[in-house]
């Protein structure tokens, strides 16, 4: 979901990773949509060679996709037969998740695979040979055994869908076929190799194939982790463990990354999966049953055995609701929280008095709160003329989820941008501390050093948590 603040945040990420010029090009593409090189040069006022270098950086790091429109389309600005460039917003945001991707690779595979992946994340796209050569040179190994070991690890990364082949450089975008897809999505789909090709790199080891991190898969796992973390904090640790075990057990069998319902599993399989992880060792059948109940998981009877599947869509919807409700509670107070929950429950129009009566909030206060929530974009309001003499206008209220969710996501991007900018500011302010060894610092400097460490820890962990929140609100 690209909102105004999302755009600003994406540009900030690119600026801090690649500098001002690249971020200028990226901002232009994000704002204007697909552009030809000529149009981009006009809008950015950059010399051709600089512009080309900027585009190459963005393409190398999978933040821009080039394509050619097969036919001019009436409904869009796509120009026929010209190479055009489009920014891939999701991939830009993924850049702030690299530490999470690496952590998952280490947890699911091992440290050596993590190292290989780190090279790809740093360089964007590499040939298979470069990946191996980089790993070899880092460890100062030169023998064929170590090369084989790295290749084997690479195979594991591909099999686990952490790594995939690079997309086609300039795919031809077929005319609009009626599907409601953005040009960005259409360009990505057109550029993507077939499923078998994406993960078939191993067949021809030795050839010079470009590979890149499969950000969609990595982000799906990160998204699942965000979902599990949410359940752990909102429900309890045991329920989170059961959810994690089920998602992990079904991940490989799911074709589509985010299914609405997980693949059905028997109670025996779930128990086995739960007990296979350290935090699930002591969990009994009753614990697992209670956790499944908390997750709203009812067994479906197939054959003789009850099969359980998780309604992931419902879990995510609940997590989203709770996130928005928490904002209302902390920003407007307990009474507004009750009012918002009433209106969000079935998204129907309710009248001020009815709301006040059901929520047990004083009528005048309820009216004031409703107007504040409406002014800040949390509610929709409709006026109706009344036939009653005393009250000429009746106000009806409802939660309009689509626009509100977009508003909340925009605030999240704004918060992430603010936190990132504050981090830059804090670092700049204490630049002199970098020149001095901690053990050579005076008391006053040590105090400043400790403050900076504490502040950076708060800001960094907040940014990671905010990223979890993006995951809950975006398709992962």
């Amino acid at each position, binding site marked *: 979901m690209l909102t105004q603040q999302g755009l600003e945040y994406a540009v900030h990420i690119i600026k801090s990773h690649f500098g001002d010029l690249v971020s200028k090009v990226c901002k232009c593409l994000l704002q204007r949509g697909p552009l030809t090189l000529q149009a981009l040069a006009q809008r950015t006022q950059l010399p051709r060679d600089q512009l080309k270098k900027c585009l190459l950086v963005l393409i190398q790091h999978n933040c821009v996709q080039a394509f050619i429109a097969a036919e001019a389309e009436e409904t869009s600005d796509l120009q026929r037969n010209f190479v055009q460039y489009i920014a891939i917003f999701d991939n830009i945001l993924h850049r702030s998740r690299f530490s999470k991707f690496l952590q998952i690779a280490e947890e699911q595979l091992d440290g050596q695979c993590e190292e290989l992946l780190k090279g790809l994340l740093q360089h964007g796209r590499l040939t298979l040979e470069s990946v191996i050569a980089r790993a070899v040179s880092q460890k100062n190994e030169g023998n064929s055994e170590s090369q084989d070991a790295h290749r084997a690890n690479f195979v594991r990364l591909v099999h686990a869908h952490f790594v995939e082949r690079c997309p086609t450089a300039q795919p031809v975008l077929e005319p609009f076929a009626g599907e409601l897809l953005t040009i960005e999505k259409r360009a990505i789909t057109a550029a993507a190799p077939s499923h078998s090709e994406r993960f078939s790199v191993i067949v021809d080891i030795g050839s010079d194939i470009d590979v890149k991190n499969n950000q969609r898969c990595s982000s799906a796992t990160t998204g699942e982790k965000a979902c599990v973390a949410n359940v752990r904090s*909102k429900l309890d640790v045991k329920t989170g463990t059961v959810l994690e075990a089920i998602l992990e057990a079904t991940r490989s069998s799911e074709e589509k990354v985010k299914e609405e319902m997980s693949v059905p599993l028997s109670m025996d399989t779930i128990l086995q999966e739960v007990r296979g992880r350290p935090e699930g060792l002591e969990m009994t059948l009753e614990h697992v049953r209670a956790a499944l109940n908390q997750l709203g998981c009812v067994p479906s009877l197939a054959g003789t055995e009850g099969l359980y599947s998780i309604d992931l869509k419902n879990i995510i919807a609940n997590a989203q609701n709770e996130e928005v409700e928490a904002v209302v509670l902390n*920003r407007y107070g307990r009474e507004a*929280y009750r009012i918002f929950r009433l209106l969000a429950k079935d998204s129907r129009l309710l009248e001020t008095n009815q709301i006040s009566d059901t929520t*047990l909030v004083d009528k005048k206060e309820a009216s004031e709160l409703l107007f504040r929530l409406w002014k800040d974009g949390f509610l929709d309001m409709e006026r109706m003329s009344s036939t009653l003499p005393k009250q000429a206008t009746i106000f009806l209220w409802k939660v309009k989820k689509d626009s509100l969710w977009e508003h909340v996501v925009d605030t999240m991007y704004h918060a992430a941008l603010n936190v990132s900018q*504050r981090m830059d500011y804090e670092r700049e302010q204490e630049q002199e501390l970098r020149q001095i060894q901690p053990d050579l610092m005076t008391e006053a400097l040590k105090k400043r050093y400790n403050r900076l460490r504490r502040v950076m820890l708060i800001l960094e962990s907040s940014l990671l948590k*905010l990223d979890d929140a993006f995951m809950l609100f975006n398709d992962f």
Partner: protein
Amino acid sequence: MGRPPSNLPPKRGRPSSSAASQKLSDVEQDVYNLIRSKEGMGIFVGDLKRELKLQDAIVKKSLKVLESQKLIKGVNDVHHKLNKHYMAVEFEASKEITGGSWYVEGKLDAEFIKSLKELCLKLIDKLEVVTVEGLFDYVRRSGCFNDEVSSHQILEILQALVLDNEIEEVKSTGKGVFSSLPLGKVCYHRLTRRNPTTGILSSIPCGVCPRISECTPDGIISPINCVYFKKWLDF
């Protein structure tokens, strides 16, 4: 607690004017008749003046006489707290005027609601699962509120607690903790969630900032000079 009983039916009007009203002047009688005709809805002074085409001083004097003879009463309007509705003493003010059973003299009885909520939560904790009728019975037997609480009020309290995210409405399965309740019966139990009210966005100052829409990187309000950030980071 000294709240008036809330579950009594509204009083009905008497068939004719009281004997005292016979001593009234013609104007006072007209004012009284109009007020009485409005029954439980009562009437504003302004509407009274308009309908009878009387001067302000005459209306005020008549109201004073009628109040001193205990023929009429002034009731605060929950929607317009500075205005009073006048109605004949024999009528109970309507819900539109008083705000309903949770209001006393035009004000929401927040203390009473808070006490009742606390008691209900304690009883739900103790009983694990409750129905409206069962909880009503326990509240009455607790002796805390005597006859002040109706079963409809208990239902309203339970619905408010659901909106507070303290309890959950469920249907009895007839098993386990529900074994004493018929299958499908609507009942309520405590939520086991640990901390449902802390969100990710709301744990960051920007998530709850009233000035977020005015905040820009180089603006008067910015993440660099933000007072909420300063408070958050330098606690």
